[in-house]
């Protein structure tokens, strides 16, 4: 090794030292994040391209209005706000872990890493709930066949188009199967049962539907689900990787690897990745929930 001691009077870029004294590992992580930003950038730009080439999109306040254990209450964006808060807060605990690392306080690093990992797991759990809610929840939508069908939100189904009413709705009801009509009644009339509706014909069923209570939309562009699941899934995969990395970092802290090494730089590198994942979420949040 030619350079065991580094003279302080050499310039940053003259060789023999790392510019700005940044270690190669940190520099490498920054370049990786730049590269990954291009991956997400490509996804989000293609999302924007497609979304604004279509006449119709979804109303996020309407799609994302559910909250676990709150049933049918309309709470627009409440749950995603909680998710976002959890993820941002886990960035705060990450900063604190890095800070404790600078102070060479192993116990402190451990505690804050545990909180960061819990934050990441909590975010992923929230995402799992939201995905399940969208994938399993069925909604009444006017499809291309001209009839009302029950659709869940998938990469090829989107029940979240504009609400229909008036003549369009009454026409659609005439083409709708009795099974769907019964579900529409059951949606608001809690005293009715499937057995009590069994013998009614289509016209009788339609007369029992309270059109002010049942929300029927057109089926919207399938691209919504495709991009939503595609991009939040890709981001969720990043969060998942981040959680795994953080668990490895926690284990290495516990085993005293960084204490032996004399610095907690690995925690800093994991932190860079974690903050990046949070930052990306801010953009995903903006694109899918706010705009």
């Amino acid at each position, binding site marked *: *090794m*030619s*350079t*065991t*001691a*580094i003279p302080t009077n*050499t*310039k940053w*870029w*003259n*060789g*023999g*030292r*790392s*510019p700005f*004294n*940044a*270690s*190669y*590992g940190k*520099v*490498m992580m920054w*370049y*990786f994040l*730049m*590269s*990954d930003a*291009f*991956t*997400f*950038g*490509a*996804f989000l730009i*293609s999302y924007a*391209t*497609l979304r604004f*080439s*279509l006449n119709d999109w979804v109303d996020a306040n309407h799609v994302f209005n559910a909250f676990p254990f709150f049933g049918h209450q309309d709470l627009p964006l409440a749950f995603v706000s909680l998710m976002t808060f959890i993820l941002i807060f886990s960035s705060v605990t990450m900063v604190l872990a890095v800070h404790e690392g600078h102070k060479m306080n192993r116990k402190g690093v451990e505690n804050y890493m545990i909180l960061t990992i819990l934050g990441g797991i909590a975010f992923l759990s929230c995402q799992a709930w939201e995905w399940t809610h969208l994938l399993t929840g069925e909604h009444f939508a006017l499809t291309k066949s001209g009839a009302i069908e029950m659709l869940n939100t998938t*990469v*090829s189904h989107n029940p979240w188009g504009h609400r229909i009413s008036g003549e369009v709705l009454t026409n659609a009801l005439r083409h709708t199967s009795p099974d769907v009509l019964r579900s529409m009644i059951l949606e608001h009339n809690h005293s009715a049962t499937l057995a009590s509706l069994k013998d009614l014909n289509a016209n009788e069923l339609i007369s029992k539907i309270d059109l002010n209570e049942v929300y029927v939309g057109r089926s919207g*562009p*399938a*691209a919504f689900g*495709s*991009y939503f699941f*595609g991009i939040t899934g*890709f981001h969720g995969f990043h969060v998942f990787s981040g959680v795994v990395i953080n668990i490895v970092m926690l284990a290495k802290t516990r085993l005293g690897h960084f204490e032996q090494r*004399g*610095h907690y*730089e690995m925690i800093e590198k994991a932190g860079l990745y974690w903050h990046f994942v949070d930052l990306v979420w801010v953009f995903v949040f903006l694109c899918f929930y706010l705009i």
Partner: protein
Amino acid sequence: MSSVATLQGADVQESHDTHQHHHHHETFITKYVFSQDHKMIAKQFLVTGMIWAIIGGLFSVIFRLQLGYPETTFPWLEDFLGHWAKGGKLQPEFYYALVTMHGTILVFFVLTAGLSGTFANFLIPLQVGARDMASPFLNMLSYWFFFLASVIMFSSLFVQTGPASGGWTIYPPLSALGDASSGSKIGMDLWLISMAMFIVSALLGGLNYITTILNMRTKGMSMTRLPLTVWALFFTAVLGVLSFPVLLSGAILLLFDRNLGTSFYLSDIAIAGKILPNEGGSAILFQHLFWFLGHPEVYIILLPAMGMSSEIISVNSRKPIFGYMAMVGSLFAIAILAFLVWAHHMFVTGLNPFLGSFFVLLTLLIAVPSAIKVFNWLTTLWRGSIRFTPGMLFAIGFVSLFISGGLTGIFLGNSALDLHLHDTYFVVAHFHIVMGVASFFGMFAGVYHWFPKMFGRYLNNTLAYIHFWVTIIGAYLIFWPMHYEGLAGMPRRYYDFSNWESFKMFGSLNEFISFVAMIVFAVQLLFVFNFFYSMYKGRKVTSTNPWGSNTLEWTTPIQPGHGNWPGEIPEVHRGAYDYAKDGHEFIPQNVPVGADETHH
């Protein structure tokens, strides 16, 4: 303490300091297979790239047989290709598969991984004065992801429905719909998965190259003293790290469209009278994502060849490179412009003509830095004491091809002319000369020049001269006539032209091109023979600096071990191009500046 770790990866540091103790622990597996030595990884990339080049070249010979001799049957083809060449005649589906795989293999596996993978790995640590890459472990992974990508792509050649066959640009909807053609079935999925692995490999490699160049330079090796090879490989890595991720995104969306029922690229399509449910997607979107990689990719292929040619031309002209800073600046300008011109591949997609003129302007701007480079190469050669080593011949050949191919680029960059020339043989001729053959020449120049450093032996000169002259004359004979065919409107990617009255006159010309292509391919096999023969039986290198070169790789032992320098890494006192200065033929970078020297 951490200042040492800052400069050199921990593993290398250890392997060097304890070199004596660790030496006998090296097994065949750690030395030749899962090696973390950048020089061995470079050789792995080179040999894998050569195998791919033979496969890809062979494919072109087979489809040239069809183009040159459309009426003839070749019964031996059936023995070789089975039902893909029924009755000795290449089937149209397999013709498209061959063209697609030829492009994919040559563009990605040979001229990206084989070229930058080899020379970035080999030259960066040696020329900046580092023991190894910043992260030797990620470097090893980079090769093995490339290997994995290679295995997947290779296996796609053997599936029942054949490999991907929608062209190397894999435009949807053809590539997105499994029912669209036999090559759009499983072969297409394997193509996408293989490319995803390839992108991981390119990313791991690129991160290492950038970091090594910025962080691991030896003392005195300021950025403006870097050899031009290193500068070129630096910009190549930056281009790769920022453009490949966009292809990854595009490929993931395409995989979703193929397998999960999404409609990112699909809208209002019917296959065989059956209307598909896909709505709202945009096939043009894919082209934007693809060419955002695709155009920088051209420079990922070309820049290493430029860098190596600059170095080899200067060394063998025994003159300093003309306009070092202009060379660096033009590389930088090309790297920036590379990201801003992708839509010139899309003039005929219905692109807004106003937007088109913006891309025309930026495309033609590339002529400026390109011309700077060409004039600097020529002025470096001017009145030099030129040694026509095989490496030098190929470097000069590179300049020749770059000029010839670059000029036709000015035609194609004009949207008005491109309307006529788009997807004709003019395009085929243009890009084969300027990025295909030219980059191959850069690669050959690099192999001939650095073979002594890689293996401690020389390549056979007689075979090398035959290789050079046949290849350069052959390349021009193959591609020059294609310009005329293209101007006459002959479209690329057609299986058989004999049914068109207007293209019948090119029948004998096509036959001639195919004939020359076979000869040129045979001569490449001569090179492969020379390579492996000389590796074991070539003339031994007896001095550490056989070319009288200034750069640091020639200060290492003839066959450097892992860690490159047995003692301390030399300190650098001057730029890489002090040739014919103050009465010295050359002054290596590690020689201190003497009192009698004129100011540098």
